[in-house]
């Protein structure tokens, strides 16, 4: 008794266990997941591909009573090998955000978005768009799609819009990230075929990263680099000393947008020193002689003057490439978002071709993609290309697709769509009066934001389809359609290395939100063209249609039986032809050296250098660069901004990186608010004084709404991709 009391007293005085301790106690999950929080112990799991970037990591979602409660990155998946970046770890959080669109909204007379039911919303959709089409012609309604939804949804959207609703013009936000790479491959190789697998990152002995910061933008690809056992040379070409540049063995901080000059110069040095693979060039390429003459004028001295790199550095760079047995070239937005982006990407392709660094393990000219399904969009969005990489202008292609889809060939347009920027330019001249924007937030992300918003204002009807009714774009809409998000729908996406992975539905969507797939189906019904899509009954049924479309193309996936097969194999890369056995889980292309042009040969493509579209002057004396801030921020932050944990990992205010010399000259104190002005606008940002940015340059992260008020609207002439990486800016402490 006494003992008992004493024990009780001790427990009250010093309590080592109890309710609060148990709340955080871990318990063995017995699901191969190790210990997990007791209250979040799952009873089942479902693996699915992440819905943020193109790396295409697999996440194992923990389910408890059929509800997703937590997740961990999938260990046995060839892409991420058990790891994920913070966005992936936090992927479930944005689904629960309080500002999810749970019902359609329509703008009332006072200009406020008010909830309406689906019937009202879709009748309004059809009425308004048909009215505009009657008044201004069928082509006066256009759509802007995305790299964030499933391939099946993109295909349905493209088919519905172009074959069902009679639209001609449609593009996607992939124009902002991947158009350059797609065009570069298409013209050089004959098909948009990024030839690599991530395994190449582990197998190279020289890796060249151009305008890419995988440490921050693609941490899981960087994971593969960190596992490279060849003690590789890692070269980073970037004006800024990024995290990746820090981790590199060589960093070449060239002047902004002198990359094309640099790579022509490198080609010249390699030719001069005879470090080229003449046999490969002769057997597998054409136009090398013309290229040789073209680059002859890019002497080390002139290249040094233009790029700011020394002749020594140029020779060193060339020597490293020449000495490499397996050299791979990797690029992303620094190249793609340039006014000469296509030629720059092709200058890297040219380097790979002329040194024979292609088609072998650890080699290649490799474009790292942006969004989770940018690659799906490139193949199946039915915007720039006819479904499956076909050509709208080609009658044979039109007939083929119409036959597969059981449609009248005449429904398929025989003209190409305008590109994104051209669609926007058509608004003020009354050529486009209705616009339908799906799963993208261009009021934040499009270049020269103020002009973009002006354009939207002069539309007669704007429909925005999104998970949130609060995005900058949705707030401008006449009609908002509430979409289900990642985790609330099924379908496939294609990652950077051509791997088709699965999205799965593990949670019901909130309220009346619907998967984009069902929204498109419902629109078909209300538009009166449901019959056309009766075979498109479910995402998996559409997948079977897409397979047939792919047959015989370089991206042939007839060998993929169904979703189950994709799930069982940890994703499957295209191509996989009918009856082809899937042996390797990580495959690269072009091992046979046969390219996709009719003659099987790759092209050397090149152009003279053009001056930058906006040059600095005495007043606008800074070159403004933009790009990713941290790995926990995604694009316009519509999703990552919803996670309180992620919000703790990056500055809440817009900041501008500026070199200490410039800061001293302008008497700018650290952390001080400064004004940044371009000919498009003026914004405020907090000064972050860092030697990692060169004098005369400033850097703004793209995740803050203000940034694109400043950017200069220049476009690559081949890909029409906006050039976000070069504007002339003025920086001042006071106005």
């Amino acid at each position: 008794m006494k003992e008992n009391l004493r024990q009780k007293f001790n427990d009250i005085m010093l309590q080592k266990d109890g309710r609060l301790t148990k709340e955080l106690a871990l318990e063995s999950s017995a699901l191969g997941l190790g210990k997990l929080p007791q209250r979040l112990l799952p009873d089942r799991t479902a693996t699915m591909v992440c819905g943020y970037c193109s790396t295409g990591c697999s996440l194992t979602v923990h389910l408890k009573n059929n509800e997703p409660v937590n997740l961990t990155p999938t260990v046995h998946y060839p892409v991420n090998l058990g790891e994920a970046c913070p966005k992936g770890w936090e992927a479930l959080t944005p689904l629960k955000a309080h500002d999810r669109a749970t019902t359609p909204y329509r703008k009332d007379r006072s200009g406020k978005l008010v909830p309406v039911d689906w019937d009202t919303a879709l009748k309004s959709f059809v009425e308004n768009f048909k009215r505009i089409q009657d008044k201004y012609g069928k082509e006066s309604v256009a759509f802007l799609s995305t790299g964030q939804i499933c391939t099946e949804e993109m295909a349905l959207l493209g088919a519905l819009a172009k074959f069902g609703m009679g639209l001609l013009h449609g593009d996607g936000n992939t124009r902002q990230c991947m158009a350059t790479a797609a065009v570069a491959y298409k013209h050089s190789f004959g098909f948009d075929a990024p030839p690599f697998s991530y395994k190449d990152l582990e197998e190279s002995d020289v890796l060249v990263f151009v305008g890419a910061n995988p440490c921050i933008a693609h941490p899981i690809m960087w994971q593969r680099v960190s596992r490279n056992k060849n003690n590789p040379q890692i070269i980073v070409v970037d004006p800024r000393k990024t995290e990746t540049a820090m981790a590199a063995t060589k960093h070449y901080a060239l002047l902004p947008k002198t990359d094309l000059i640099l790579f022509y110069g490198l080609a010249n040095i390699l030719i001069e020193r005879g470090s080229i693979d003449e046999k490969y060039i002769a057997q597998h390429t054409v136009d090398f002689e013309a290229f040789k003459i073209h680059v002859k004028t890019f002497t080390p001295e002139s290249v040094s003057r233009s790029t700011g790199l020394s002749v020594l550095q140029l020779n060193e760079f060339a020597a490293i490439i020449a000495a490499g047995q397996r050299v791979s070239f990797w690029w992303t937005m620094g190249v793609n978002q340039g006014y000469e982006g296509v030629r720059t990407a092709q200058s890297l392709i040219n380097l790979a071709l002329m040194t024979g660094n292609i088609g072998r393990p650890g080699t290649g000219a490799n474009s790292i993609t942006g969004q989770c399904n940018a690659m799906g969009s490139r193949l199946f969005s039915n915007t720039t290309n006819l479904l499956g990489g076909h050509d709208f202008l080609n009658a044979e292609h039109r007939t083929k697709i119409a036959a597969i889809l059981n449609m009248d060939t005449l429904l398929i347009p025989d003209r190409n769509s305008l590109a994104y920027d051209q669609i926007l330019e058509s608004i003020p001249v009354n050529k486009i009066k209705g616009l339908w924007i799906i799963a993208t937030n261009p009021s934040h992300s499009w270049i020269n934001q103020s002009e973009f918003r002006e354009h939207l204002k002069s539309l007669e009807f704007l429909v925005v389809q999104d998970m949130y009714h609060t995005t900058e774009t949705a707030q401008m809409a006449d009609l908002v359609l509430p979409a289900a998000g990642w985790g609330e729908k099924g379908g496939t996406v294609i990652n950077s290395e051509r791997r088709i992975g699965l999205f799965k539905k593990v949670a019901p969507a909130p309220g009346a939100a619907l998967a984009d797939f069902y929204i498109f189906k419902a629109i078909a019904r209300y538009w009166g063209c449901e019959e056309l899509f009766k075979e498109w009954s479910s995402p998996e049924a559409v997948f079977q249609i897409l397979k047939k479309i792919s047959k015989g193309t370089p991206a042939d996936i007839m060998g993929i039986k169904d979703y189950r097969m994709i799930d069982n194999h940890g994703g499957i890369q295209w191509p996989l032809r009918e009856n082809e056995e899937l042996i390797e889980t990580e495959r690269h292309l072009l091992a046979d050296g046969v390219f996709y042009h009719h003659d099987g040969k790759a092209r050397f493509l090149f152009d003279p250098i053009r001056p930058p579209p906006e040059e600095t002057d005495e007043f606008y004396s800074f070159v403004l660069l933009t790009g990713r801030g941290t790995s926990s921020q995604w694009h316009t932050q519509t999703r990552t901004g919803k996670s309180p944990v992620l919000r703790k990992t990056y500055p809440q205010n817009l900041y501008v990186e500026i070199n200490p010399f410039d800061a001293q000259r302008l008497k700018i104190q650290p952390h001080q608010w400064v004004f940044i002005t371009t000919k498009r606008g003026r914004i405020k940002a907090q000064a972050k004084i860092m030697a990692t940015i060169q004098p005369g340059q400033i850097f703004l992260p793209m995740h803050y709404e203000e940034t694109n008020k400043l950017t200069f609207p220049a476009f690559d002439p081949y890909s029409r991709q906006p050039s976000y990486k070069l504007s002339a800016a003025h920086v001042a402490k006071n106005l």
Partner: protein
Amino acid sequence: MIKQNSMDDFLKEQQDLSAVEKFSIAHDLKQLPAAQSLYKELIPKTTPGPGQQYAFEVNLDQCSGCKACITACHNENGLDEDEIWRSVGQIHGGTTQSPVIQHITTACHHCLDPACLNGCPVNAYEKDTATGIVKHLDDQCIGCQYCTFTCAYDVPKYHKKKGIVHKCDMCISRLNVGEAPACVRACPTAAIRVTLVDVQAVRNDPNHFVQIPDAPDSRYSLPTTRYLRKEKFPENMESNDSYTVTPEHSHSPLIVMLVLTQFSVGAFGAGLFLRHVLADPIRVKMISYHALMALVVGVMALGVSVFHLGRPLYAFRAVLGLRKSWLSREIVVFGLFAFFAACYALTIWPYFVERWMGHWEKNYLRQIQDVFAILTSATGLLGVLCSIMVYQVTRRPFWDHPMTAIKFYLTTAITGISSTLLVAVSVALSTGIDISSLMEALGKTGCEVLAILTAVKLLSEASLFGHLQERQWTSLKKTAFLMKETFPYVTFWRFLLGTLGGVILPLYLQSAYASLEIHTLIWIVVFICLLSLIAEFLERYLFFRAVVPLKMPGARMS
């Protein structure tokens, strides 16, 4: 034509989750953690031997700054929505030719001499003997948050809803079964690992651990995390938040508690003085009302302090930490102070004296009163010393400064004198004693002393603004900056009211009391007391809000 309810099929399909069944996996119940292959090289093969403990080791050359560790820790430990136990800071420097940026991932350093543990008044921290991991006992915690002050690495985090602190335990229950902590498991580049360190090595060369520019001095608590980097950092590295100045929480119950305990102690001190200089019959009245006032304020102060606790019901546990925690000592000593103060007030209150102690010998009674009076003042002064130590041991430069002692003791004196003036004048008024002669005898000196002490206090506080001239953004410069830029009004009023109530009015009263009307005089005394008190509250508000905590570099985002 569109049928009625024509959206029903889509809405129904959207809510249908049967596909989850189809594509989910119910696992083999005996399955080992699949992630083991990721981390088996990253945790020790054996448990710590004698003289060893577990420690984090971070390979900075591998850390790419992706911050997956933060989110993995959050998810794998089932933390609340916005709760994080690990953070990643950024430091940068070097030259334009050779710039450097480095991300620093940091969690608990599982110190040999943990400041959280040493500060905890209720022994809610344990240094695990087998592993060396510093564990927080959630159910023992009373939510006083003192560990969030004492930890130099900003590790313990207060969880408001639960009213307790949480912190990293190196996933001890995972380590115990051969699994890796969440952060180790989740690092894509294997930059974080758990190693065994020799305790003696940490003691011999503390600065070898958490050796990062801008990090707090490792000799303070002997952290065990090692940060490896091939190249040395350049001299000029600074952290991402070197220039961010963010106010801290105001901890308002602590403001009230500190000012009012000091008020009460000061009043009892002045009472002790009154006891000896005054003569009966006014003496009894004066000292008994005065003691009552001081007691009420003191008890109120201690009462309010309980509101600072997340779990006030368990406040009694605060006696446990007496051996090492200044907070525990503060609580116990002020508890004694309150007890003696009550005893004193009781033994001098005329009613009780007459009723129960009337038959006692006068001298004997007086001796008892003296003993209680002295004990009250002594424990009071000791309590204020404990308060000072509570803040000094945090090593935060604004608190770990002679100024804290000056402030706390001068607050004691200023509020003590000004309140005594008020009581004296009111008692005099109610008993019809000649106020002029009272002023002559006591008030004049009181006013002079008050004016001098207040002036000294204001000047010493104002000297802080000298740090604004420094080129480096030192901690004290940031504090001065916060006062000047973030709290300009509070700072302004603190100095204005302090000067008015503590210097100008007392000096005026001292020189002009003879010619003043009685009501004016009383109003002036009321204002002296009130304004001084408000000014002291404002001073203490700034004491909490303008302090700059110690932390790992760059770990706090603005």
